[in-house]
């Protein structure tokens, strides 16, 4: 009896669930988090305004703010990763912004909201390239998260593509081919006679006169069904085997 009662309650609760498993008593105004007057959590912070340097990120690197924060050193100088143990892991963290929330100790690019990885702010990209060997620093050296590192790689490749960054060009010797010769693959081939005469490509694309013996054979086969104007025999109506 109690079991039956319990089952009935469960069924009622399941029936009362609306949408994605939200209980009946939990429905409030969508979008507004439920107010918890006695909770110890801090009230949600208002989101920060967008950075003024979003359109032109290279201007930030000339500004007094940047000079005061970093001086002449690169952006990642002095950043220390937080990890357990003496040996740091071989990869840095995957991303500094997880589910909209910042992790503790974000990486050098994510901690400054005015820094944008763009192929046009060459000064920022230069800070992540070794000035002696021209290779890009590993993220364990600079401390950036893997997501920013991937964006950096893309931006550096794009900047090199557009000629804004230096790129090592391997020496390609001068081609020795004979450029005067025009073999048939690249030279002029005379067009086929069909094309010049304006005829169709295959002769059977146009109507062709059929061979007379085939015409005669077909006439003989279907002589009872030919129409009057084609010179067949007078319509005999039904065939003789009626």
């Amino acid at each position, binding site marked *: 009896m109690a079991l039956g009662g319990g089952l009935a309650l469960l069924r009622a609760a399941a029936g009362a669930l609306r949408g994605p498993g939200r209980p009946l008593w939990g429905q409030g105004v969508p979008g507004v988090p439920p107010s918890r007057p006695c909770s110890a959590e801090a009230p949600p912070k208002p989101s920060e305004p967008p950075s003024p340097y979003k359109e032109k990120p290279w201007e930030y690197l000339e500004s007094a703010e940047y000079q005061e924060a970093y001086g002449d050193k690169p952006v990642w100088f002095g950043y220390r990763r937080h990890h357990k143990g003496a040996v740091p892991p071989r990869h840095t963290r995957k991303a500094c912004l997880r589910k909209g929330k910042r992790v503790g100790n974000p990486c050098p690019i994510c901690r400054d909201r005015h820094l944008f990885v763009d192929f046009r702010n060459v000064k920022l990209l230069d800070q992540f390239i070794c000035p002696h*060997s021209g290779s890009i620093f590993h993220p364990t050296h600079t401390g950036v998260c893997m997501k920013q590192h991937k964006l950096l790689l893309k931006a550096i490749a794009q900047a090199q593509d557009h*000629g804004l960054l230096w790129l090592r060009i391997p020496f390609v010797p001068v081609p020795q081919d004979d450029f005067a010769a025009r073999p048939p693959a690249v030279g002029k081939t005379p067009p086929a006679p069909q094309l010049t005469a304006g005829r169709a490509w295959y002769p059977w694309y146009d109507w062709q006169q059929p061979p007379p013996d085939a015409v005669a054979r077909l006439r003989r086969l279907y002589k009872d069904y030919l129409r009057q104007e084609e010179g067949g025999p007078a319509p005999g109506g039904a065939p003789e085997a009626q």
Partner: protein
Amino acid sequence: MTGLDLQKVFRPVKQELKPPKYKLLTEAQLEEATKKAIKEAKEKLTMPPVLDEREPIDDVLAEDKILDGIETTKYIFTDLTYSIPHRERFIVVREPNGVLRKATWEERDRMIQIFFPKEGRRVIPQAVFKDEHLVTVFQQDRHEDILNMCIAQFEPDSADYIRIHHRTYDDIEKHAKYDLLRSTRHFGGMVWYLVNRKKTDGLLIDMIHRDLLDDATSLITLYHMLHPECQSAKEAEERKLQGVDLIKVFAKTESQKEGYIQLALQAYEEAMATSTDHIEELDLCCLLQHQL
């Protein structure tokens, strides 16, 4: 005229650093090493070919109207036989309307790069080769780099190759940055371009400023060979001029910047005069020292 500056040809490039290697050589070994270096440098300085623009390919091989409308895309058929040179490779395109035509030069280059990739060349050329981005590269004085990239990416008779080379030469001539290409394999091409278009004044002045009189005379000789009907060529042939006289006649008759050339020649002659005085004084001092 290109000049063989070993320090510039074998200058250190940014690359992965290795510990330096030291060698102890005798005088003879050092001479042999220098000769070998000069031979290698001469190979590196071979001039790339200067060609006219290639004629576009537009040959129709077949028209199969029965295939019209069956496919929605073009099909490119490339002959992948390994042993034939790329220029003899047949590459044909079947259009959706059934026409079978030979592939254009751009399609050919793309297909050959996909199946037979070459070092330094990309299937889709870099964005630097567009005119608006070339300006950035010229501002950074990287003319030699862009020309090397162009040789790696394009064929010597393609339109892009010729356009980029002409833009580079124009920019160099505008800003008188001739020294950037000296001792590189692109100098010859630049001189050919300028002499054909009769824009040799800036280069001549630059050569006189750097005391390269032999180069200046060979430049003017080349000019006369290419434009034999000009007045300076006829005068030079009549009077068999050499050296500074040749330059003076050229400046008077053919050049637009006559004043600058005269000034440069004057400065050069003054410098020669003072240096000969110095040399005479040094000789006297040496003689005196020997006597003492």
